[in-house]
């Protein structure tokens, strides 16, 4: 065929499956570690995990996180321990969803859901505050009017547990597993994980 081979190549494609999907109607399943909109997690007793340490803000390459810590009110503490993040803002016009904040967080307070379909009509709306990022009492992320949550977007938001546990106990050294999620339990261990999740009962009094 020589010169005419190309015509057969293009004609063949007509009868093959389309690569393009009809996006808004038909969505592909997201990867299990998809980086989307952040959530601020709570412990199972309802306490906030965030301790206002500003490590996430420090590590953020896009400088989109603003955190202010404050001492917990002794009579009604917001988080276990000394301090809590009383201001927590993420500017989604700057966020690049690199997940470094999640890596940096010592208490796994901030993690990322799989939601990426949210849009704003002005710049100030793009700044999510603590009240919007915080999960509800049942551990599920808030569904804001301009967000398009789909089935499964809110699952598997938990982060890696570090080699040392948040409470610094040496008993957990060298163990890697998922931390628990309020409302979802603990993810099944994956290849290379110990399969021995952190005892969730300790979480409430740790940190």
């Amino acid at each position, binding site marked *: 065929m020589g010169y005419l081979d190309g015509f057969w190549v*293009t*004609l063949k*494609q*007509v009868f093959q*499956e*389309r690569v393009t999907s*009809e996006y808004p109607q038909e969505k592909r399943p997201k990867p299990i570690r998809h980086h989307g909109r952040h959530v601020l997690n709570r412990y199972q007793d309802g306490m906030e995990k965030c301790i206002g340490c500003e490590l996430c803000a420090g590590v953020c390459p896009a400088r989109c996180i603003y955190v202010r810590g404050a001492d917990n009110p002794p009579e009604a503490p917001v988080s276990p321990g000394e301090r809590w993040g009383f201001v927590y803002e993420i500017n989604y016009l700057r966020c690049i969803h690199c997940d470094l904040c999640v890596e940096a967080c010592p208490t796994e307070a901030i993690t990322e859901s799989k939601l990426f379909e949210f849009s704003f009509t002005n710049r100030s709306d793009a700044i999510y505050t603590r009240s919007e990022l915080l999960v509800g009492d049942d551990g599920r992320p808030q569904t804001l009017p301009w967000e398009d949550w789909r089935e499964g977007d809110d699952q598997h938001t938990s982060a890696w547990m570090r080699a040392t546990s948040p409470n610094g106990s040496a008993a957990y050294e060298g163990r890697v597993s998922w931390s628990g999620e309020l409302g979802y339990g603990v993810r099944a261990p994956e290849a290379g994980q110990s399969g021995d999740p952190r005892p969730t009962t300790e979480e409430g009094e740790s940190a």
Partner: protein
Amino acid sequence: MTGDPLFAEGVDWVVVAFVVVKALIGFSIVMVGVIFMIWFERKVVADMQNRIGPNRAGRWGLGQTLADGIKLIFKEDLKPDRSDKLIFRLAPYLSVAPAFLTFTIVPIGGVFTGGNDGAVEIFGRRTWMQVADPPVGVLFLLAMSSLAVYGIMLAGWSSGSKYPLLGSVRATAQMVSYEAALGLSVVAVVLISGSLSTHDIVAAQAGSIANWNLIATAGIPFAIFCVAATAELNRPPFDLVEAEQELVGGFHTEYSSIRFGMFYLAEFMNTITMSAIIVTLFLGGPAGPVLFGPDILWGILWFTLKVMVFLFTFVWLRGTLPRFRYDQLMDLGWKRLIPLSLGWLLVIGAISVGRDAGWSRVVTLAGAFAVGIIAWAALVGALRVAKLRGGEDEFGDLTTATDGVKT
């Protein structure tokens, strides 16, 4: 042959009304054709690239062209400061008008077999199914395709900008070059059919598939015409005029709004017209078997089907072939197509003269081919000598590489 029987009994108001209505029908056919052609091209190219293509406006995206047209009309109409305003405004119309005018000479239907002359009877008047049948139809075709150059040339020149100017310079050179090959391949058809009128050319092809000029001229003029027509249309692989990687948009870079839309319209109108012309000149126009029912409908159906085949082929070419390099384009036009069509014309001429004069067919053929081979050898020799004298040209190894393929 005589002309259109509509004018046989003088011109009264009914005849004028007939002509106006026929022109309107022809215009609507081309416009609706363009709307579907743009959609068709986008869909087929999408298919060839495993995409979906337009699918939002209307069912299967059929309304996409209309939506684009409405969008273009409401966009801002920009005129560059340094443009020649009058010509800048005139050029899109110069581009559209020849495209439609060429379509007027295409017979889109009619029965030409069994003693019929292709006329239909409507309201007691007999007329042919084409808007006009000038006795010099084929010359009209060539004249219009020459005029189409002006639209593009003036558009690029009046824009007052460098890329459009380069695009229009390319367009002029390319279209003038391929015009020659186009014309010479049509002469073969005229020689066989014995008439310049498109109606007579179609009538001469009626009856059997062996009468089609594709067979009667042994295919070579058909092939040349198709290649030259693609180049005339500035469609891929000959779209150096627009070459967006080099010239932004070529001649229409500075155009916006509906003026740009008119160039787009003209391009697709030309595609449809050229397909219809190919079908008319080489494939018997509306000729085809009548299976059942009224034979007049079958003519239109066959004509439409044949045109569709060519429309698909144009899209297929676009989906498959990369763009020609400019020197390759000129090589193909001047060194291959024009000598080939000229030689083939001489062969066909010799055969027709020989038939009329009663010469032996074998001797005629042998003589014609002997002359053809001598001419070809002379051409190749001349090119070689020119190359030796001129020494290394600016393309250096590239040209040598193409020479290796050629010989």
